[in-house]
């Protein structure tokens, strides 16, 4: 979930380089929830930006984490101020922008390994 179209494209490239598949993309939180609910093949992990139009990453995560089988969420933000708020939600991890390709790879592997 990322409203910056260039970053969205880069995430897609990185994820396919890691050998994973992108099952869905969204420009804002509201769109993300609609798409998530519509997917039959739910994602193993969601990369979540915070500052997005319509609905931000924190509010979107709160909704997703309340689901019966909540997805794994990696919260990615440049806002240090939202780090504590995001981690307080429990059930997600946090990466601060700017991050390296390796850091993202390791975080995805770590999160998937926990499941």
């Amino acid at each position: 979930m990322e409203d910056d179209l260039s970053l969205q494209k880069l995430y897609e490239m990185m994820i396919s380089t890691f050998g994973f598949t992108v099952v869905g993309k969204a420009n804002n939180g509201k769109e993300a929830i609609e798409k998530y609910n519509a997917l039959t093949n739910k994602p193993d992990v969601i990369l979540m930006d915070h500052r997005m139009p319509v609905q931000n990453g924190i509010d979107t995560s709160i909704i997703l984490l309340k689901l019966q089988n909540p997805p794994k969420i990696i919260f990615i933000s440049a806002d240090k101020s939202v780090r504590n708020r995001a981690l307080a939600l429990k059930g997600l991890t946090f990466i601060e922008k700017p991050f390296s390709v390796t850091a993202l790879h390791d975080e995805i592997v770590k999160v998937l390994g926990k499941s």
Partner: protein
Amino acid sequence: MKDDNAQKKGFEPILKKYEKEKALVLESISELIVFQDLKQNILWLNKSAADSVKRTQEELIGEKCYSVLHNSNKICVNCPVVASVKIGESTSSEITSSDGRSFFIKAFPVRDNEGKIIGAVELARNITKLKQTEQDLIESEERYRNLFESSPYSIGIFDLDGTLIDCNKATAKLLSTHNLENDIIGKHFREFWAYHEKDKPNISLFEGILNKLKKDRETLEFEFPINRSVGGVLWAHAIASLIKLGNEERIRFIVQDITERKHAEQELETSELKYREAYNRTDFYKDIFSHDINNIFQNIHSSVELFDLNTEQSINMEKNDELLDIIREQIKRGTNLVSNVRRLSEIENKDLTLQKCEIIKVLKEVIDALIKVSKKRVINVQIQNEPKEVYIKANELLSEIFENLLINAVRHNQNSLVEILIKFSRVVKDGVNFIKLEFIDNGIGILPEMKEKIFQRGQVEKKDKVGLGLGLTLVKKIIENYNGQIWVEDKVAGDYTRGSNFIIKFPEEV
């Protein structure tokens, strides 16, 4: 004869008894009683009259009235005795004796059996104390009137219905009037209060003050705006209290002009607000800037890393051109971000002079530059109803408007062919001619709930921060500086996914 004498002798004891009783009655009266003949010779006087000059009754018989009372050898000018003899009726007047005592004297003419005036009786009452009390009252009234009038503060006395019944000269000065009687006395309290339009229904204001004073029985202090008779409003600090004037309860207002202080406070408040806003704005721009610049770095950083990875491992080589494009695009984005922050700061910190500008030429220069720098995108820009020349009042920031709108139309567009239609038209509103420009694109569109928010990023109170750059904030600020308007609609009403239509209106210069 013998019988008459015998009869007289029989009455004598009775007459003597009457005489004695009459003398007792007259002597016991505290008022001074003097019987005088037509030449003011004292024929008889009671003890009170003799005591008043500290002499005996016997000593005073035969003396002149004016000589005894005034130590004078002339008849008093306003002697009531002389007057009563002259007109044949009772008269009265006030006389002050040579030792300073005041008497109220009433004189009655005395007639013989034939009705001929033979003298007069004067009845005098010592009113020295009464006169002194009167004088004290006058002096006291004068003293308090002086205090009232010399007060540098306005003092107004209102009755309990709220009508002004008295006020001092400072009140006239305060309200800039010379005629207290005609201009302010008799007016109701609410006529002085400078109501704001929204306060007008609040006519029970005076009743509110009165009720509070009656309830608390203490002075009440408050500040309020006053209407001057000559127009304009001043600010006053008032101390209201209930006072007793005679048997009546009144409200006294002591009012001080605090207009200067109030203006200074307001200026300080405005200044504080201005600096607080400036501080918040700076903080806000810092926040947006750091967020956006971080995203730009993230884009460049990830692109470079992926490029290196692809090159090292000879994989996804076809993606490398795309990664280089992202890097170039992000460099442009960073440059624009810095430029927009600088421009916003310029607009907010100084008054930019406007002059007559021709906009077609500026627009075409921006279109040419856009096509030149966006070589990787296929862009088709059409202009509809293009006028030969259009003038508006603008400045060097005009090109920023077109540049931001056109860059957005390209950047937020995922089609292989970017289509932009610029439509010109003219509209008249409230007698003003406007030139209307519509920038219609086939981009990703703008969600209905975002159509207003995209222009509001400069409003620091909006906490719902989103990452869309500062371009449209800048555009809106510049347009508002030109007395114009901007808003966005769907290219196809109701379906935002088909693209956007940014509409601008500028007042046209003829």
